[in-house]
């Protein structure tokens, strides 16, 4: 019994079985890993001096291996924690994360991750969608300045006579498809090297690897 219990009536906790099934098995720890990966992958790219962000790598991984809702929750939590760890701007891009989760899950469901040209196409489209959603946020909330390397692109487009919204949109359309294509290809490269025994514990693994013929036999 908790110390602060008093005469208030008991309140039933939201215990939807369907909701709980989202976190069944290894999915909950996978979501936590996806959240952490989103936050720390920047340290790896910085250590290797690679000029890309890959800040949605964890979300994409969770979307492929678990599903859209799990990825949206994991990605949103990553952005909230990024806000807590000193980058409050990230909290405003939660809608972008949710769209990345849903789109990636659709791409995985359509089997696009099994063929690399389709993976590239999925990444390009993902980048365009992400740019369309993030541009108004970057323009109206942040005035087009995020203190990131991509700000130079915004300044370049503004110096060419574009307004803020168009400049942030053009910046997103320039950088996001490249970042998302690399993220998609990285996820495929990582998952294709994993042993099936490990991968098949996750509900979305069949979207990456078709069931082997010897398993059927």
């Amino acid at each position, binding site marked *: 019994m908790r110390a602060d219990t008093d005469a208030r009536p008991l309140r039933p906790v939201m215990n939807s079985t369907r909701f709980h099934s989202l976190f069944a*098995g290894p999915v909950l720890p996978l979501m936590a890993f996806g959240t*952490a*990966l989103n936050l720390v992958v920047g340290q790896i790219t910085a250590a*290797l001096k690679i000029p890309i962000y890959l800040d949605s790598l964890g979300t994409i991984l969770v979307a492929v291996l678990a599903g859209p809702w799990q990825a949206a929750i994991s990605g949103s939590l990553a952005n909230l924690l990024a806000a807590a760890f000193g980058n409050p701007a990230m909290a405003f891009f939660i809608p972008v994360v949710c769209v990345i989760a849903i789109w990636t899950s659709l791409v995985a469901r359509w089997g696009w991750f099994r063929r690399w040209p389709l993976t590239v196409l999925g990444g390009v489209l993902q980048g365009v969608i992400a740019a369309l959603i993030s541009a108004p946020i970057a323009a109206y909330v942040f*005035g087009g300045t995020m203190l990131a390397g991509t700000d130079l692109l915004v300044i370049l487009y503004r110096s060419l006579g574009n307004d803020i919204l168009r400049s942030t949109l053009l910046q997103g359309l320039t950088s996001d498809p490249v970042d998302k294509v690399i993220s998609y290809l990285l996820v495929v490269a990582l998952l294709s090297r*994993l042993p099936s025994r490990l991968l098949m514990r996750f509900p979305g693994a069949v979207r990456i690897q078709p069931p082997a013929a010897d398993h059927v036999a």
Partner: protein
Amino acid sequence: MKPAPKLAFVLYCWISAVAAPWTLQIVLVLTLFALPLFSPMWRLPSERAKHTARRFLAFLAILSIVLLIVNGLMFSGAGRTLIVGGIALNRSGVLFASTVALRLILLSASVLFFFLSTPMRAIADFIEDRGLPSALAILTLLSVHIVEMLPDRIHDILAAQEARGAPVRGSLLARFRSLIAVLGPLTVSSLAEAIERGHAYALRGLGSARILPSYSTASSASRWTWPLLSLSFITVAWRLLAWIQR
């Protein structure tokens, strides 16, 4: 430590950042910066939190200056020019940048001070107390744990791959290959750990089809929560009314 009134204040700050006049926004920003000094509920509990807050304030200051300069220089359209330190800035651009910077400070500072002054354990308790699924609380705590653990693992893998001859300081293409060499073991170890933890959680009944009924017994609300929520509602209603009348 009850996060409910603090969350209500954060919500009010967010709504005011979008809907309230700039004078109220300035008052709220000053209140936000005073709260950690005078209110025990908002006090920053550790040196690390204080360091993060200082770094954040520096970040906001630089961001505001960059916003002013970029918008002052790049704002299209005719307008009066301000000369600041020998640089000619567009007056409309500077005004726009000031509005954005004020809104940004209010939005960001409220979120940051909330997280810095509230222990993660209190947030997890709050999630459960409000009747939300315990899985969300576990996910939050586990994520924070992995975030603290992962950099060490990355460092170990990076050092091991470098010792094996991975070209971590070669050309861009070579470094990109090293990225896969680092991410591969990191993903394998993390997925294996996820499976093990998944088994442990399943043994404790998490994600089970049959869930034991659980009850929340504590109310996290305080005397500040409802007035702040009402203020947020009034601000939205006032703004909507003004918009309709226009």
